[in-house]
């Protein structure tokens, strides 16, 4: 009997061991994911501004659709499902705590909290709070870097009457990453061009070039609009690029005739400010761009009489050409992607190209009418902001590399050029806080 029992048990056990199928499936379609955004509590006007701004930031990415609701109270987790539709599987619950906000990301399928954080206000405006919360939420949801709190500086041409004639000037404006909330930053009665963000994350600075009667001088401005002349040689003083540690800068000077690159740094032993010339050719060397602390990319026409991109080693000043022919200009490097974006003449217009330092491959990013110039990577590496020139019109456009969509940041009526994206600063002071 015992043997029979053992036999029966063994047979039953083996039959109950259902076979597991292991299947691999690959997706063939994509769609925007629906994310719920619920404010718990009674919102004030600032809270509503913050929520609206947060919704716009997340939707600007083109990767998700936000379903926004306000709820006075939620006592039980089961009530979560009644707040939002059934096809919303991911929800962010925001509530006000002390002097700040707390957000919690919930999985609506299992009704479990995945991650949550708090953010203190510290007298920041609600718009900035929304950007900061979005910068915290985005990596938690998509595991991607984000730069909702970064800024874009650009030049805007205006016409002012001076006596009997109208004179054109160029101002420098600052706007959010999606082109909203533009603010006038530099308004001097001259032409201001080529803004460049710099400085450490705790001390943001903006460099730009200002036309004078005798030269084009390099100006530095802090976020309180306090300006200081940095470089005032004869000719052009423009387009500075800064190393990652912020201690080295390479810029263009044309005091010796043609535009050459100069390297300024602090000597390690003597602690003196040193300046040395990097290029010694008859061509025009412009638009330097740091790749890492030892290498930079710049534009020069000394070899082919047409501007090409070159990779320069600062230590031994050896250089290697990256592009093969054509008219190439305006390089900008993204550390996140390890890629370079630049403009190249195709037919009669400039198009954006991308060079991958990992694969050493070039790829065309844009096609179609219009001349795309002065590209600049966003801090997250997901956007490229550039100047789009179509005939007499000149606008700032933004290319979303994930969705492939083009979005204009400035209106058709304004003549805007020279966009430059800032890093995500940790210290929001002056105009950044407004």
């Amino acid at each position, binding site marked *: 009997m015992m043997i029979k029992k053992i036999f029966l048990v063994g047979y039953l056990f083996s039959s109950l061991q259902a076979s597991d199928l292991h299947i691999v499936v*690959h997706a063939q379609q994509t769609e925007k994911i629906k994310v719920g955004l619920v404010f718990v509590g009674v919102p004030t006007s600032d809270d509503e501004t913050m929520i609206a701004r947060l919704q716009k930031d997340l939707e600007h990415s083109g990767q998700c659709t936000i379903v926004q609701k306000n709820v006075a109270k939620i006592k039980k987790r089961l009530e979560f499902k009644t707040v939002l539709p059934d096809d919303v599987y991911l929800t962010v619950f925001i509530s006000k705590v002390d002097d700040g906000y707390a957000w919690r990301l919930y999985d609506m399928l299992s009704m479990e909290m995945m991650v949550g954080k708090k953010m203190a206000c510290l007298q920041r405006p609600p718009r900035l709070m929304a950007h900061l919360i979005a910068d915290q939420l985005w990596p938690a949801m998509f595991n991607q870097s984000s730069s909702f709190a970064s800024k874009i500086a650009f030049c805007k041409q205006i016409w002012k009457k001076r006596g009997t004639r109208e004179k054109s000037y160029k101002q420098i404006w600052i706007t959010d990453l999606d082109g909203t909330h533009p603010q006038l930053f530099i308004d001097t009665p001259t032409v201001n061009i080529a803004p460049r963000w710099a400085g450490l994350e705790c001390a943001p600075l903006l460099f730009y070039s200002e036309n004078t009667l005798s030269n084009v001088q390099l100006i530095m401005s802090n976020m309180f609009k306090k300006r200081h002349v940095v470089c005032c040689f004869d000719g052009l003083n423009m387009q500075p690029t800064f190393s990652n540690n912020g201690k080295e800068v390479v810029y263009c000077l044309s005091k010796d005739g043609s535009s050459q690159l100069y390297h300024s740094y602090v000597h390690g032993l003597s602690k003196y400010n040193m300046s040395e010339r990097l290029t010694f050719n008859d061509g025009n060397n412009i638009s330097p761009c740091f790749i890492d602390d030892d290498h930079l990319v710049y534009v020069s026409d000394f070899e082919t009489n047409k501007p090409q991109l070159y990779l320069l080693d600062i230590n031994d000043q050896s250089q290697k050409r990256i592009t093969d022919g054509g008219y190439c200009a305006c390089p900008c490097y993204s550390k996140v992607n390890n890629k370079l974006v630049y403009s190249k003449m195709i037919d009669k217009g400039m198009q954006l190209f991308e060079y991958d330092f990992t694969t050493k491959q070039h790829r065309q990013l844009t096609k179609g009418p219009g001349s795309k110039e002065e590209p600049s990577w966003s801090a997250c590496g997901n956007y490229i902001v550039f100047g789009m020139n179509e005939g007499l019109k000149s606008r700032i456009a933004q290319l979303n590399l994930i969705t492939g969509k083009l979005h204009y940041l400035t209106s058709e009526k304004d003549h805007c050029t020279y966009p430059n994206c800032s890093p995500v600063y940790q210290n929001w002071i002056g105009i950044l806080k407004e």
Partner: protein
Amino acid sequence: MWPWLQNEHFKKNALLTERQQFLGQLCLFTLVAHLMILGIAIFFSGMTRHKDRFVVSTQKRSTVYVLTPYKKQARQSNVRGSTISSSKASKVINYQTYQQLQKQKKSGLKIKKKTKQSKSLISAQKMKKKIAEKKVGAVIKKKNQEQAALAKPKLAMVNVDVVETIDSAKKKPSKKHIPEKVPVEKTVPEIEPKVEALKSEPVVEQVSKDLSDPIKKEAKLAETDGEEIEQELEDIDLDDVTFIDSERWDSLDVQHKIQQKVQENFKSPIGIGKEVSCECTVLIGQTGKSSKVTMVKSSGIRVYDISVRAMLVTVDFPKEVWNRTITVVVGQ
């Protein structure tokens, strides 16, 4: 051995002598041992069954599956990679067909060359045939002599096709030269028509001159079928072949159904990288809907994990996997 066997009452009623007792004990022991072995075998076969996990990919690439005959489980060395694609372009052929196709591929080039050969080459071939026929004839004579010496060889003589052809004219050695191929003709009805035409095509072209009309008619049919098969041959890449056993073949159909359903319902979030994938275990209920979905290996992207789990909850699984647990790896 067992206490109850030593019981005197049992000895009196059941067993009389010591020899009988010993035999009884021995029989009981062997019976129990056999039952235990049987139980263990069934138990372990069940365990190995549930470990039979296979991965199916729905990439667009087409794969040729070769069904290995008389094998329950194909050796891992024969299986190329760990994925089996079950796209619509996949084909399944048996092992014999695979071998024949390989031969055909090798000889296919030679056959094409033969059709374009000049008369001089053809005459050289005829000479070779005659030489081969003579050799075969000599071999047959030796066999006949050996068989005549034995009593049983008569039966063997009857069974040997060669013996029957001895009585025929010398032309028949040409058939003898084709004994390698004549059996093919006999087995033609057993094999699938496409394969059969492949085999007969080169044979028919050579033999059609010597044989009678019915075979010529078959040759004509074989030519037309051969054209179709040539096209299939071109489509089939014999270098990219996956060997599957009978068990896998049964589950391949089920996998294909599940993949179709999952692909219809799954839409990946925008902006997710191509190398992202996540693994989930799905417990399917009695109605074909999943009753429980658990994440085994996360992709690292919460949005992606949730969209996959939401999709698996809504999918209607086929009947073959009802009341079972399956593992699904969803990738880009």
